[in-house]
């Protein structure tokens, strides 16, 4: 630098730089003057370039400091800067001559203060909860008696010792320890890898897969426990197929993994208690079950035997059953021969009683009786009653015949008288009487009486009856007759008609 002042351009007091020269000077000054520094501020805009480098701002209420973390440095950060996070960044100031800008190359980021950490934790909790990773239905039941327990913790220290002690007390099991750093920046990736690694093991393989995982760490400051608040740890625990118990810190410390684990144990010792039942209690239980089993089975037989005995006692003896029938049989068989004899006896008596009356005299007597009756009846057999009856009938017949004749004669007489009266009446009423008084009856064509001149004219010859006889009249004669008898009364207007009378 002194060279510049030692060799001034003539006419000018101030030295002259090229842009690159002054940029280089500024860069050197910045880097040289400040060296490695720590800056506290709130993380502003964060931009991760495609190249993998990380660009972000650290700001306070008045100023902004541009920060850069190169790709290779990112893995070394214990906290990846997030917008809004209060951090302390460590690195060197430098300048970027191409843009006339200065910035800070950060190789370490630390969260500034507990309040900032808690705010970050709250933010992550909200995010994971919104994804549903805390949901109760995601929680898997712990196996009642795991065969192999995988423990993710530091291989040295009180935590693994406490767990193994408590397991030994309760129920010794196979334990597979996956050693991890439980604090510092390697903690989170190692724990996450351990959880994933246990899940990748195959059951029954050379490295047998545990059926329960305990992630444990002793108490510490929030910064110490911070690894268990990292998202990768929480996500690995949530993704674990193997049931997982988290036991990080003391009872009052709650880390992110506690929300996603299947069970949270307040301490590592409590995790061992959740993991296995107490063996001695189980043995006592099994003993008790065995005793109950035997007793119950024995009782089942005993009760039935008792019942059988009771029933057997109530069952009557075969002899008793047969006694009464046997007595009856005895009594009856005693009576059997007597019954036969008396039966024969009875029939014999009956036979002899019947046979006694069976004699020739009885038969004769019977025949005699019948004969007497016959004679008696035949003596009463005579014709007299019939003859008497016939005589009586004959008289009756004669009387009836007499009455018949008389009745008939009377009837004929009566009719004769009636006929004579009618004849007289007939004579009185007969037209013949009028003939005597000068009238005549004209008949045309036989016996047909005509009273009309027209009918008489139409007919052939006429007969005229007078009181004393009948006269046949022809047509001509009639006409002549009419002319010769004008004085005859005529009902008509023509002479030939009137001539008919």
């Amino acid at each position: 630098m002194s060279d510049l002042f030692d060799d001034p351009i003539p006419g000018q007091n101030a030295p002259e730089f090229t842009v690159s020269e002054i940029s280089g000077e500024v860069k050197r000054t910045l880097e040289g003057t400040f060296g490695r520094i720590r800056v506290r501020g709130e993380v502003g805009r964060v931009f991760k370039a495609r190249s993998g480098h990380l660009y972000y701002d650290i700001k306070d209420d008045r100023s902004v400091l541009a920060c850069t973390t190169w790709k290779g440095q990112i893995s070394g950060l214990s906290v990846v800067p997030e917008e809004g996070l209060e951090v302390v960044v460590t690195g060197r100031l430098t300048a970027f001559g191409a843009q006339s800008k200065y910035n800070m190359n950060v190789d370490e980021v630390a969260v500034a203060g507990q309040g900032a950490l808690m705010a970050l934790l709250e933010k992550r909790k909200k995010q994971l909860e919104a994804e549903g990773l805390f949901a109760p239905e995601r929680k898997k039941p712990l196996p009642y008696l795991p065969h192999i327990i995988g423990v993710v913790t530091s291989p040295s220290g009180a935590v693994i010792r406490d767990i193994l002690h408590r397991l030994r007390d309760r129920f010794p099991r196979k334990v597979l320890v996956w050693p991890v750093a439980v604090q510092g920046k390697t903690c989170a990736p190692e724990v996450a890898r351990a959880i994933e690694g246990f899940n990748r093991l195959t059951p029954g393989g050379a490295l047998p897969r545990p059926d329960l995982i305990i992630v444990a760490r002793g108490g510490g400051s929030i910064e110490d426990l911070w690894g268990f608040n990292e998202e990768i740890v929480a996500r690995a625990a949530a993704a674990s197929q193997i049931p997982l118990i988290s036991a990080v810190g003391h009872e009052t410390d709650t880390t992110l993994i506690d929300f996603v684990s299947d069970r949270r144990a307040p301490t590592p010792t409590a995790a061992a208690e959740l993991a296995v039942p107490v063996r001695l209690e189980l043995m006592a239980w099994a003993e008790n079950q065995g005793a109950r089993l035997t007793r119950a089975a024995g009782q089942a037989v005993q009760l039935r035997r008792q019942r059988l005995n009771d029933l057997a006692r109530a069952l009557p003896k075969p002899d008793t059953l047969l006694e009464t029938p046997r007595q009856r049989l005895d009594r009856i068989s005693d009576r059997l021969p007597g019954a036969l004899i008396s039966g024969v006896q009875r029939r014999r008596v009956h036979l002899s009683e019947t046979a006694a009356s069976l004699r020739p005299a009885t038969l004769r007597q019977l025949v005699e009786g019948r004969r007497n009756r016959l004679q008696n009846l035949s003596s009463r057999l005579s014709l007299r009653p019939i003859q008497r009856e016939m005589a009586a009938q004959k008289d009756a017949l004669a009387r009836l015949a007499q009455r018949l004749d008389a009745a008939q004669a009377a009837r004929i007489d009566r009719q004769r008288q009636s006929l004579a009266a009618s004849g007289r009446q007939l004579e009185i009423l007969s037209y013949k009487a009028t003939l005597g008084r000068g009238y005549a009856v004209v008949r045309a064509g036989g016996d047909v009486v005509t009273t009309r001149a027209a009918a008489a004219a139409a007919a052939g010859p006429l007969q005229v009856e007078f009181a004393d006889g009948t006269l046949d009249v022809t047509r001509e004669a009639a006409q002549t007759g009419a002319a010769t008898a004008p004085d005859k009364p005529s009902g008509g207007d023509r002479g030939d008609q009137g001539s008919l009378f």
Partner: protein
Amino acid sequence: MTETPVDQMSFEQAMRELEGVVDQLERGDVALDASIALYERGAELKKRCEDELKRAEEKVAAITLDANGTPKGTQPLDAG
């Protein structure tokens, strides 16, 4: 009864069924034939439970990791 063979049951399964068997037998409402079969089943289950309880062996090992952080084997862990 379940179809799982007793010797393949987990301790918890065997335990639950043994309890069921004992309860059933103690109620005394099982036919004699069935109660004998039940007793035999119960005895088997009890044996299974006891075997599981006897198998209480402690074996602690720590996983050793290679450079990539993948497990390559185990070594005894002396955690005191």
